């Protein structure tokens, strides 16, 4: 019995020792948990910062890419427009040459070929979105027309375009080159003028023949 009791005591002591050991471990673990929690919070905060930074950078990059794309398109479009605007000078000369064709040549097959070239040129302009601006008979509009002659007349209402000196062109919704026009003037003195055919000038020698029609 004594032995038994002693043995129980020893056991208790060992149990107590274990308990004490566990308590020490517990406080150490609690401290470690606290540290880890702190580290986790730090890591989470850092992750959130990184995420926010990444999102900002991604948004910046998306904006940059969009703007770069826009600029590239604008540059290409502008280069195209400048080239087309230069080409118009040749188109004008071609129009004038065809309009001034001697009548005895008109029936030559070779001339037919020239008209085909002209049609091809129109088709090219058309495919690039270049269309001609209607002028004669319209009210003068500085957005599309440039007045080069102001003529006193009473056969057309004041401010109406009564002749085209040089055809204007639009590219899509923008004016590539305004039409150079003659504008009617009904102001003082105009009523005293003799009547005359004011449309004669507009349909004059420089009015180009337009078989394809890109009006």
């Amino acid at each position, binding site marked *: 019995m004594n032995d038994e009791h002693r043995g129980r005591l020893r056991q208790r002591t060992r149990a107590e020792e274990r308990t004490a050991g566990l308590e020490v471990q517990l406080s150490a673990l609690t401290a470690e948990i606290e540290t880890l929690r702190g580290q986790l919070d730090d890591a989470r905060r850092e992750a959130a910062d990184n995420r926010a930074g990444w999102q900002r950078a991604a948004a910046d990059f998306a904006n940059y890419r969009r703007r770069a794309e826009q600029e590239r398109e604008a540059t290409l479009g502008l280069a195209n427009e400048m080239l087309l605007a230069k080409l118009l000078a040749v188109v004008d000369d071609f129009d004038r040459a065809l309009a001034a064709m001697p009548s005895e040549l008109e029936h030559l097959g070779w001339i037919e070929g020239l008209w085909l070239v002209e049609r091809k040129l129109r088709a090219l302009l058309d495919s690039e979105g270049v269309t001609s601006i209607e002028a004669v008979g319209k009210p003068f509009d*500085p957005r599309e*027309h440039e*007045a080069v002659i102001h003529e006193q007349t009473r056969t057309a209402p004041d*401010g109406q375009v009564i002749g085209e000196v040089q055809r204007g062109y639009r590219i899509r919704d923008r004016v590539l080159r305004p039409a150079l026009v003659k*504008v009617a003037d009904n102001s003082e003195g105009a009523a005293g003028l003799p009547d005359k055919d004011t449309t004669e000038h507009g349909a004059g020698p420089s009015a180009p023949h337009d078989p394809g029609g890109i009006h």
Partner: protein
Amino acid sequence: MGKIIGIDLGTTNSVVAVMEGGEPTVIASAEGGRTVPSVVAFTKTGERLVGQLAKRQSITNPAATVYSIKRFMGRRWDDPEVQRSKDLVPYTVDKDPKSDGIRVTLADGKSYTPPEISAMILQKLRTDAEAYTGEKISDAVITVPAYFDDTQRQATKDAGRIAGLDVKRIINEPTASALAYGLDKKKDEKVAVYDLGGGTFDISILELGDGVFEVKATNGDTHLGGDDFDQRVIEWLLAEFKKDQGIDLSKDPQAMQRLKEAAEKA
């Protein structure tokens, strides 16, 4: 802080530029040009047009199309330049009853001071710059001829203020040219700056020391410019053609138009 725009408010044409990545970039107008004609027009329908559009309609509306307003900026009515210029422009220039200055009077009785007209041009340049940068613009630097006196500089500042711009600096045109050529980074020297505009010709002598320019002398012809050169070329072409072909092209408006374009290009 927002961007500051630089404006060359010229007699014939004006230009607006902005710094981008350390380099000045000229801003294209809504109509696509790099320069904006310094022209303001008031149409019969009450619309106000500025720049290219105003220029395109000018011959249909000469009395209400104001150009060369810079010739009147900050000048007194009795200034010989005013007396000379007012007879050369098709719009009406009167003495301002409230000051020694002038007013531009239109057919409908409305009248404007030169800074008010200039402000309309500045407003247009500002709008174009805002469309380009996508930002609101409120600050500007404007150039003026070296011979502009304090009153003329103040009138230019007033024009900026009316256009809603805080004019940070008024810079002499020849100084701006010299800066644009990077002359401030070179050694101390004297330079001559020639400025042949559409309607005026200026020459200035600048002295450079420690990166500061001093305008030593300035002179020029306020009524000589590129437009006069074009006119001479046209006259010469007309005379030559008449001599060779015996045909007077000056009566043919279409031929005159083509000559004018060819002369401008030449």
